[in-house]
């Protein structure tokens, strides 16, 4: 449904997207993961026809977004990251306007507005002026606008940024729901979000694709090594020495009165650590595993690539 071939985009002299290619098949939910300024929004803006690429071809639903832009756009539902809305319109008028612009038939619009308002839980706010809605509700209006014309392809640019946790899980639920029949490309810089909602992930960093894999394979990359953070009352040097003797622990460091312990893959030495602490007569205050951050993954992916080369 989405085909990107050797896409490159320069803003003036600044390179934003560097020769990327990927496909999204029909019915797939694909996560587009990357830190800020990685080129996610630029790529999505090119997919939706808002920006033109410097080089490369982009096809959506079989249409070239440059030469057959109108046909391609007809198939796309786009959720822009900045949540742009006409603040002087009511929710109903705005959705009506969006539906008309997407060429929906007049007698279908009214019932469809009722449907999307129900999906997005906006019933009570349908006749409120958008300017008076809070950020979370504007986000919902933006979602409603994205799906009003029942598009085959959904392009969602950071749809869960800036809303409260309840709405975040609601939005993710909605995305999974929508992804059952539609093709979804979802951009985010939050790692867990991808594993919750997507089947496949494309990781982009500094305009380049650094990894493209299924969620299962990604998590094995992530769990390449494991880290444990621990707070213990007692003589730190002695404790560290004791910990190093435990099998499976690669490195022990001590910072901010906490121990950071790195272990080899597949090993879980937590029970041995506990034993050692009890035997030493020290007191364990806290112990938790540290999740790998997005930065760690990029670091890992990019450095691994270099060692391969």
């Amino acid at each position, binding site marked *: 449904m989405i085909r990107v071939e050797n896409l490159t985009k320069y803003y003036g002299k600044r390179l934003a997207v560097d020769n990327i290619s990927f496909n999204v098949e029909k019915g797939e939910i694909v996560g587009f993961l990357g830190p800020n300024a990685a080129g996610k929004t630029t790529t999505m803006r090119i997919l939706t026809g808002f920006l033109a690429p410097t080089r490369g071809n982009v096809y959506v639903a079989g249409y070239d977004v440059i030469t057959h832009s109108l*046909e391609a756009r007809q198939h796309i539902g786009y959720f822009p990251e900045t949540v742009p809305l006409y603040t002087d*319109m009511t929710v109903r*008028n705005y959705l009506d306007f969006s539906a008309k612009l997407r060429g929906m038939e007049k007698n279908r619009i009214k019932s469809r507005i009722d449907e999307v308002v129900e999906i997005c839980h906006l019933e009570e706010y349908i006749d409120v002026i958008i300017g008076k809605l809070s950020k979370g509700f504007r986000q919902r209006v933006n979602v409603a606008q994205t799906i009003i014309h029942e598009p085959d392809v959904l392009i969602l640019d950071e749809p869960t940024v800036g809303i409260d946790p309840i709405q975040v899980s609601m939005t993710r639920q909605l995305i999974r729901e929508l992804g059952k029949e539609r093709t979804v490309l979802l951009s985010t810089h939050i790692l867990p979000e991808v594993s919750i909602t997507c089947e496949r992930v494309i990781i982009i960093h500094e305009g380049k694709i650094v990894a493209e894999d299924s969620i299962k394979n990604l998590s094995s990359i992530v769990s390449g090594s494991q880290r444990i953070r621990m707070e213990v009352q007692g003589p730190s040097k002695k404790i560290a020495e004791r910990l190093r003797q435990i099998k499976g622990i690669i490195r022990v460091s001590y910072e901010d009165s906490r121990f950071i312990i790195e272990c080899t893959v597949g090993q879980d030495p937590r029970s041995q650590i506990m034993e050692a602490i009890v035997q030493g007569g020290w007191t364990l205050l806290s112990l938790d595993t540290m999740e790998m951050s997005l930065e760690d993954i990029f670091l890992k992916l990019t450095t691994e690539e270099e060692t391969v080369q």
Partner: protein
Amino acid sequence: MKNTITIASKEFKSYLTSPMAYVVTGIFLVLTGVFFGISPATYDETSIRGFLETGGIILLLLASVLTMRLLAEEKKMGTLELLLTAPLRYSEVVLGKFLGSLGILVVMLFLTFYYPVLLFIFGDPDMGPIVTGYLGLFLLGCTTLSVGIFASSLTSNQIVSAVVAGGILFALWFVGVAASYLPQAAAEVIGFFSLSQYFPDFMRGIIDTRGIIYYLSITILFLFLAIRSLENSRWS
């Protein structure tokens, strides 16, 4: 065409929900009303020349203000992204905005109809110059609005848009005056490009095809430039 009408009606309604259109219309009515009331032409000739002469110049100013938000605000708020990712042609966007603002202009002109009505009640005015006067003002209005939309397409700052539009319009209006200081041949050529060149004919009751063609072509030119400027943002 359907999309153009959708945008035009959205713009027109959005004018009605903001104070801008009311302020602009109010100022237009007060100023033209005053000049209509004190102009000797009203009493000596029972004509609406007092209204038309000032109306033209006031339009240059008010059209710049009326159109400044049309594209600049969309750029600033980011809503242009919604508009340009919907299956719309750039020309439909620009034309829709133009027609929406033209709607306000028509309402504004409609509200001045009581000037000639007063003349008919208290005198016996000549119908011809009134009709052609309104036609001239309408055509001039189209031109000013298209220049305003073009200026609005250049920037995301509404003030800058209004100043640029005002600058272009006043330059086009007074270029005829400036030309009169030049040698006659040059003055005549430059005079052809002046917004004020053809307006007096319309006030006198003359329909000059050159005038109609001039105003329409300037309108089309600036709408075209606005479309190109919008397209250009895609390649930035």
